[in-house]
């Protein structure tokens, strides 16, 4: 936490955050199964490392599934947090003056006034529920990424939040700032060590997309079957800014509930949400997104594809709120239920608040692959199981900009495995 030279305003604001959080520490979330947060101890300190190559082999192999590469030649910057410690933070030489990457607690120490005034708990409220409160009161770092004005960084910036112990909670607070006219492509993976069983990940993410800036944010979750995950994300997009959110979940999880909110305050600002979700084992998955169309000419699109297997329960939500006359948004969520023991909900939710000109629409569907389509592929010589997997792959193969190849391959593999099971 920052030192003593803080302005009275900043001190008052931190106090306000603390009080708000304390009032909400027992507040259940509106959605998702309740998690008893008192059962977990906070994650431990770990040793810093000099190079990503020096990570344990098993760790490297785990994180690669979420697009995190120990070989940084295709990355512009990296952040690796093991449990509570940022063990590695590096910007590649060519991007030295374009990117800042550090832990959020260090960012708060380095630029306390600016952080508190503009970014610290400004896009997510600390008293939203017990998980935001937990992070506000017992934060265990998180990444801070800033891309400087006008700098268009194509090479991905990668961040990994790793949990290596069981029965802990990792309470991260992440902040990404893409300044005016800048562009960034951030890939974050949340992973747990293969031996980890129970645990909680509470992750606050606050993203700020400047005027004419663009942030492509890809998140891949790779959890353990007994892990509970409660991300809370708020994104603020300024004039002509573009925010693209890609989310991929291919592994079982105890429960995950997330509902990122994009506030499109800027004129002609845009938010796009793409998600591919596999419901496996007895996972309880409750995911969605909200776009608040506030700025004149704002646009949003949410595309979700869900395949559920086994005993999984999946909620796919999407909310569009039009608050200006000139705005337009569309939701497209489709699901395939591949097991008689699985449940899926598709819940589109549209509101025009005092905006008679708002154009909001949705298509939601839950249906099996049409037999007619399977037979069609079979008439070209493809066996039934391959036909099913090809169509399923097509179903989830939404156009995801910035999705790393390794992830595309992962998705293909998951589809192949699950289509065989579904036969």
């Amino acid at each position, binding site marked *: 936490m920052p030192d003593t030279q803080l302005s009275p305003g900043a001190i008052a604001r931190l106090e306000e955050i603390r009080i708000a959080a304390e009032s909400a520490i027992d507040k259940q979330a509106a959605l998702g199964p309740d998690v008893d947060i008192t059962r977990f101890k906070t994650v431990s300190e770990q040793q810093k490392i000099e190079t990503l190559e020096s990570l344990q082999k098993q760790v490297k192999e785990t994180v690669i599934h979420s697009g995190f590469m120990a070989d940084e030649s295709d990355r512009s910057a990296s952040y690796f947090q093991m449990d509570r410690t940022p063990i590695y933070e590096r910007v590649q030489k060519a991007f030295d003056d374009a990117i800042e990457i550090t832990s959020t607690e260090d960012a708060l120490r380095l630029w306390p006034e600016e952080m508190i005034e503009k970014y610290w708990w400004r896009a997510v409220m600390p008293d939203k529920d017990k998980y935001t409160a937990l992070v506000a009161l017992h934060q265990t770092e998180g990444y801070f990424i800033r891309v400087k004005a006008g700098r268009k960084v194509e090479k991905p910036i990668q961040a990994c939040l790793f949990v290596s112990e069981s029965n802990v909670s990792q309470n991260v607070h992440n902040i990404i700032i893409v300044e005016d006219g800048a562009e960034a492509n951030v890939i974050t993976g949340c992973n747990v060590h293969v031996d980890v069983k129970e645990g909680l990940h509470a992750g606050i993410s606050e993203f700020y997309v400047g005027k004419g800036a663009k942030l492509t944010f890809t998140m891949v979750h790779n959890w353990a079957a007994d892990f509970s995950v409660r991300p809370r994300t708020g994104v603020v997009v300024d004039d002509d800014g573009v925010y693209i959110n890609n989310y991929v979940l291919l592994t079982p999880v105890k429960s995950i509930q997330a509902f990122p909110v994009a506030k499109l305050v800027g004129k002609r600002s845009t938010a796009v949400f793409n998600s591919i979700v596999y419901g496996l084992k007895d996972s309880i998955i409750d995911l969605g997104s909200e776009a608040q169309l506030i700025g004149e000419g704002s646009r949003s699109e949410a595309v979700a594809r869900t395949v559920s297997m086994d005993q999984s329960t999946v909620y796919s939500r999407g909310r569009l709120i039009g608050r200006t006359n000139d705005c337009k948004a569309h939701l497209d969520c489709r699901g395939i239920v591949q097991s008689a023991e699985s449940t899926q909900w598709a819940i589109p939710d549209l509101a025009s608040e005092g905006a008679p000109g708002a154009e909001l629409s949705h298509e939601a569907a839950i249906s099996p692959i049409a037999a007619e389509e399977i037979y*069609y592929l079979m008439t070209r010589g493809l066996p039934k199981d391959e036909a099913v997997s090809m*169509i399923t792959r*097509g*179903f989830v193969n939404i156009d995801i900009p910035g999705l790393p190849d390794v992830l595309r391959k992962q998705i293909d593999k998951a589809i192949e495995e699950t289509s065989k099971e579904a036969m």
Partner: protein
Amino acid sequence: MTSELPGPLLVIEDLHVSVGDREILRGVDLTIQEGETHVLLGPNGGGKSTLLNTIVGMPGYRVTGGRILFKGVDLADLEIDERARMGIGIAFQRPPAVRGVRLRQMLEVAARGEVAEDAIARLDEELNLGHMLERDVNMGFSGGEAKRSEMAQLLAQMPDLALFDEPESGVDLDNIAVVGGAMNALLKGEARISERTRAGLIITHTGHILEFVNADVAHVLYSGRLACKGNPLDLIEEISSHGYDACVECKLCQTLS
């Protein structure tokens, strides 16, 4: 390999087929030799598509009597894909759209593997596929596009027996010429992979397609049977002036049974 196959390519014997609890085909007999192109005529709803769908093995078409032999093998217990790999191909009248599966992928499936770029380029040139290659197959395709896409898939598959369900329906004259050209290439062309001479069975209402494809013989499917056969152009002419009812009684027809 081919010389080991003594008999005809396709033999259909006394075939009875029901859809739901309705019997549609009531004793169809048909023999197609290698290299032959046959035409199937008949009134709407008469069961022409039913016959083709039964040959390819579509579920829902229940064979209640008789049998189909392809290359001497009884097809009864073979799945759709097994029949396709044996060498049966079909161009559907109204193929279903498949979201997320591009035409290019369908060509790869049909050709069983990667299709060389120059092979794709040849198909593209012949059938004017253009941007269709990267579109989801049949998704929003116009009538002509859907037919060209079906033809491209057959040309990639190169089946020994090609079945065409109304290849000219809903297609303008320019497209009929393109589709007809492709059918010709498939049935008679030199771009053959195997030594076998391909055979075809074409359903047509109007006979327009026969301006581009030479057919050897036509059959009229009437009352669930192949009521007569004869020269394709003569039969079409007779039907267009006198109708099916008169045709099956007329002297042009060689009655089969």
